[in-house]
């Protein structure tokens, strides 16, 4: 008898659990359905394998633009892009291949443009004699370019084409 009681209690509990599960599922689906479009919009798959556990053929590596022609910046604060190959450049605590041409003291011999004065400032705007450690890793901001497909649709418009008037023009 005891065992039957036990079974009955179990079944009753199971029914309760099932009802709860159905409720959760229903509400969860509704919530997910509301979140889903947002989710797919905020985390687009830009690169890599969409199903990470399966092996797939790698896309061919892009060819870097190496024409040495300085590219216009799209807005004044843009870190200029690198118009030459940086293949095999060592950028470590020991040495910085970029700075061996672009550092102020070395530009005369190399003919390379000097890194901007902001690289010689601390976070607080204090000037330093040498490159600030926070600006040491060039490729954090400056990157070479390749002719590739855009990862996301880009509707960028230069601000000079958007009717911006020069400072002081309103007077």
């Amino acid at each position, binding site marked *: 008898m005891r065992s039957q009681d036990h079974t009955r209690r179990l079944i009753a509990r199971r029914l309760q659990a099932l009802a709860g599960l159905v409720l959760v599922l229903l509400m969860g689906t509704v919530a997910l359905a509301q979140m889903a479009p947002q989710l797919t919009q905020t985390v687009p798959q830009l690169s890599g394998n969409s199903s990470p556990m399966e092996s797939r053929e790698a896309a061919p590596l892009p060819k870097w633009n190496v024409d040495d022609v300085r590219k216009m910046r799209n807005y004044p604060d843009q870190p200029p892009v690198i118009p030459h190959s940086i293949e095999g450049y060592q950028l470590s*605590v*020991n040495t910085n291949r970029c700075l061996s041409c672009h550092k102020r003291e070395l530009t005369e*011999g*190399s*003919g390379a443009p000097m890194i901007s004065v902001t690289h010689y400032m601390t976070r607080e705007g204090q000037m330093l004699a040498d490159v600030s450690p926070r600006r040491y890793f060039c490729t954090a901001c400056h990157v070479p370019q390749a002719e590739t497909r855009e990862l996301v649709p880009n509707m960028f418009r230069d601000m000079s084409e958007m009717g911006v008037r020069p400072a002081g023009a309103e007077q």
Partner: protein
Amino acid sequence: MIGKLRALILWAWRVLSTPASTLSLGFLTLGGFVGGVMFWGAFNTALELTNTEAFCTSCHEMRTNVYEELTRTVHFSNRSGVRATCPDCHVPHDWTDKIARKMQASKEVWGKIFGTINTREKFLNMRLELAQHEWARLKANDSLECRNCHSMAAMDLTRQTTRAADIHTRYLLSGKATCIDCHKGIAHELPNMEGIDPGWKVPAELQGKTAFHGWADGDRLAAYLESSRMAAAE
């Protein structure tokens, strides 16, 4: 003691200087020739055996440090499939120079026996000194080992990027610099380069006097400046 030694030397001299009584002249000359060929062949084979990547990387000091770094560079794998192995850059190809380098390498055997760089840490601590030896060697022989493959005459500047062609014209073709002055750390990682200036650093006394402008129309500019100076003078 000294008497005995003297007797021994005298005996050896007598054996060497007495004409052979049982061996024929033909046997001696031909045998000498064949023996010489065999000795020379064995010597060269052994020498070439020590001149291979497999031999160099049989020591863990070379395999886990410099060889591993080499495998990530263009001298190890590239689009045309030409590979430079250790001796291509580190051992001269001419025989006398090669023997001289091999004799210097006895120091490396010493280092191996006494474990001078048998850990990564020891190697990194010594890397600057070791690198400086190689830089000095390549500077002294005008980057001979680079030029064994990269000949200046065969270098088509028009196939290089403008930047590379400019710099090669200014420094390499003019003889102001040799390959290693600028191309350090192309096959291995660099030591701490603080205070080691690249080959194009302009010395303090020349600063401001060497700037390269590369004006395509420098003549026209000079003529214009000259005419404006004349106009101002009138």
